């Protein structure tokens, strides 16, 4: 299995690693501030250890050929479905009345996070193995559709609407990369809209419907959902051009910001570092993503291209959704900012994604020579 080429070392993706360190460094500094309580909080150290573990994980993940994932992905898919089933039906809900975590003692695993990554791998694998021909039709989309819908349903009943919808978004985005018949696309969009409206009416839980309603009419509910968005906008806006300074943000430190070290972590950053700091951060972040696109463009096989772009899509959509929420474009959805929000499952999933991108990069370069 291991056919390690010495030349690979020469083609190690230092750029991606540098960007990862840069973004993670900013994330850790921000976490230090957002959880600061007269001293560094244990949460900060926990995330620091996860980050170090993630870096070690990169070494392991670049040592094998990513093409192994084409078959290995299905095994992982089977594994994650079992974990999701276990989470849904055998874990008693503890946090906020939801069953999202499996307690491993040292670590609370949130299976829906790796599920997103595994779905990308499996979809890339499936599309790579099946020729598009004159374009995928309904019948050919049935299998990837089912592959998506199974974890979607399992995550939806946790309930975690945000992550579940993320799977649908990933399926749609990746499917748009491959050739799908236009007629099929149009029909699928119509079906999707119909499904969404029916789902909104009959399947959404009250709190989920309320979130959407609050987003549409923020003044109707000033203290809960709308309050969170409002406080986030105040935090971001009050940072002004140069920010209030490290550890000086009032919105975060006086607890006006909800979830300030998880979903709303970027609000703290924007408040303390201002427009200048935010632009710097986003530039690094998007450079990292564009570098991922570059990796996809450089890949020599269909699986490599689909997998690399799928991973970029995975990180990209979470980023956009999270930042749109923070800046008041979207209702409160529980999507973290990859690498930036506190949470071991999300952090490790993202680091693994980036390690796979580095893996693809190394092997495309080697083959090109």
């Amino acid at each position, binding site marked *: 299995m291991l056919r390690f080429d010495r030349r690979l070392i020469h083609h190690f993706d230092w750029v991606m690693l540098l960007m990862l360190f840069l973004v993670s460094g900013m994330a850790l500094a921000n976490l230090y501030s957002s959880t600061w309580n007269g001293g560094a909080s244990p949460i900060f150290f926990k995330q620091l250890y996860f980050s170090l573990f993630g870096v070690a994980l990169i070494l392991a993940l670049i040592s094998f050929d990513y*093409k192994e994932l084409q078959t290995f992905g299905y095994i992982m898919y089977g594994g994650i479905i079992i974990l999701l089933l276990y989470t849904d039906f055998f874990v008693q809900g503890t946090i906020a009345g939801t069953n999202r975590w499996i307690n491993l003692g040292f670590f609370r695993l949130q299976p829906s996070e790796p599920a997103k990554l595994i779905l990308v791998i499996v979809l890339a694998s499936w599309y790579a193995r099946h*020729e*598009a021909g004159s374009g995928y039709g309904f019948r050919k989309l049935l299998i990837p559709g089912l592959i998506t819908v199974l974890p979607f349903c399992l995550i939806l009943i946790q309930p975690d609407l945000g992550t579940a919808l993320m799977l649908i978004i990933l399926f749609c985005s990746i499917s*748009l*990369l*491959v*050739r799908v018949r236009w007629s099929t696309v149009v029909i699928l969009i119509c079906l999707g809209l119909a499904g969404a409206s029916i789902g909104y009416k009959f399947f959404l839980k009250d709190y989920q419907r309320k979130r959407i309603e609050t987003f549409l009419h923020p003044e109707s509910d000033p*203290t809960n959902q709308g309050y969170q968005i409002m*406080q986030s*906008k*105040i*935090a*971001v*806006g*009050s*940072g*002004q*051009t140069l920010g209030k300074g490290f550890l000086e943000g*009032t*919105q975060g430190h*006086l*607890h*006006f910001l909800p979830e300030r070290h998880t979903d709303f972590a970027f609000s703290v950053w*924007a408040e303390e570092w*201002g*427009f200048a700091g*935010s*632009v710097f951060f*986003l530039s690094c972040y*998007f450079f990292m*993503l*564009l570098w991922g*696109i570059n990796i*996809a*463009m450089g890949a*020599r*096989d*269909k699986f490599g*291209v*689909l997998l690399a*772009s799928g991973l*970029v*899509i995975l990180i*990209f959509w979470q980023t*956009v959704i999270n*930042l749109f929420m923070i*800046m008041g*474009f979207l209702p409160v959805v529980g999507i973290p900012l990859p690498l930036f929000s506190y949470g071991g499952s999300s952090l490790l999933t993202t680091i693994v994604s980036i390690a796979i991108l580095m893996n693809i990069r190394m092997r495309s370069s080697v*083959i090109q020579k």
Partner: protein
Amino acid sequence: MKNIRKRNKWRSKAPAKTSQQSDGRQGAKMTKITQRDDGELDIIKKRVLVLSFVLVFFFGVLISRLWYLQVQKGEQFALLAENNRVRYVEVAAPRGNIFDRKGREIVTNRPSFNVVWSREDNRLDDQLLKKMARILDVDISVLLARIRKMENTPGHIPIRLADDIDWEKVAYIENNRLDLPGVKIEVVPLRVYHYDNLASHLIGYLGEINKKELKASKEGVYRGGDLVGKMGLEKIREFDLRGEKGRSYMEVNALGFEQKNLKGEEPLPGSDLQLTIDIDMQKIAEDIMTENDFAGAVVAVEVNSGRQLVLASAPTLQINEFVGGISHKAWNGMLENPHHPLLNKVVQGQYPPASTYKLVTAAAGLAEGVINSETVMYCPGHYRFGNRIYRCWKRAGHGAVNLEKAVAESCDVFFYQVGLRLGVDRLAEYAKKLGIGKKTGVEMEHEKGGLAPTSAWKKRRYNEVWQEGETLSVAIGQGFDLATPIQICMMTAAVANGGTLYKPMVIEKIFDSDGNLVSHKQPQVAQQFTGQGRNLRLIREGMKEAVNGRHGTGRAARLEGITVAGKTGTAQVVRLKQYKHLKEEDIPYKYRDHAWFTCFAPAENPKIAVTVLVEHGLHGGSAAAPVAKAVLEKYFEGSVKKMPEVSVVRLSRQEKELAAN
């Protein structure tokens, strides 16, 4: 790259079969990058390139949004963030204290603990409301009513859920503050009345500021819910007493807990008032009036300065009824009370001055020379004027009467004739000189001026010509004559001090909150009744006889060791035939005569003047004089031995009759 793409393009045109064939010829390394993929790979890569544009587009959107929020609207959001974290808190200033002339506390403050809920910090949900109702031990509807009352006020003003809660509740709320977000304890100074209702008409009470008062006040001085003086000195001296509110800017966190004080000003307590009142004397006066169930007024003044020692109106106000707003029922009860507790009888009660007015008539007659010390008139018990008979109160008559005897025994016939000789207008002129018919200017609200009638006044008021017969009534203080107790007291003081009419003084000194003297009031002369030293001495002799003489009318005011000089008065309320033959006790309360007694002491060197009015008290000598005596006794306490109680048995029949007038 370019090269590869060109080749791919060409290959995609080739039939699939050919590419499959060529596939087989490829080396082992190339098996996985199948050439049949090339056409499809090209399309996918094109789309990935599009994806990079999508990325750049969203990056642009995010940066624009950040620009809008942070740079364009940054200042507004910075302001919102400041509002979020900074709470403006007003701290009530302790009101000034009120002391008596000897520096004894009458009204001070103590801290009271109120429960307030800050709407900005937390929404009051049902659960919290239920918790608060349980802690405060009130019905939930009480809390809801208070919240509803404040619904239309700006959100930064906290709502008061409970006032003046006890220590146990304060401790409980403080210990559980983490479970009660937005709920706070507010410390507010509360008035303490050390002598309950003592001098309540003078001091007044506090009440919540109303909309009219709020509108009339300067911006920023008051806000809704503040307590302001509603009556008495509390109202008149509001400016001195209120002090200045403290203001502080507190940093709070999202739960409303205060983190640190950013900046602020301590409240400036109000100024203290030292009154001229003597609480011992005031208390004696009020107690006697209450014990006897008297309605009326007691006024005592230093004759040489106008410093008021007693300003009592009976019955006193029940101050407790007014704290926190008086109930409709209590208010109506006061309105319907025949003793009219709401009326400050010292300045608002106007009564016929009756025989006390004879001092004015005597002074006028002497000054105008229509009588002198040698003038003697004969009193047969009545005086015929025109076709009417005017009676003296003593049916048998006083016989030959000079001025001294006329004052001492209150002979009506003597004064009828003095009045006639003077005429009503000259009489009124002297009444005014002695302060009757004119407001004294004492610091009490809604003072009435009384009335010293003139012919011009009658013409103006009733458009009628003055009848000479009416002058007879006016000369003995009946008819149109009206005076307030404080006017009679100031007049008596003027007679006692040789003709100086002082302006009544209530406040001696004002101290600021640090105890520095801000203002020390000096006696003010209202007017001078000059060149009457000899004449007034004659009147004083008569007054001395009235108390000390064998036939004096005011013998009930005699003091051992101190010579008291005084004048009684019995003011007719109505003259109704149907009551004429009834015994006094059978006349309905509201038709009984008012009793006056006014006096000064010591007669040789006057220091204090005391006036007592008992509404419907029947006889000045019996009802009013003992009250004056008690006040005098208190004043001279220590300087003289207390006089043994006069037993009723020792009074002769004649004395009783005398005491009746």
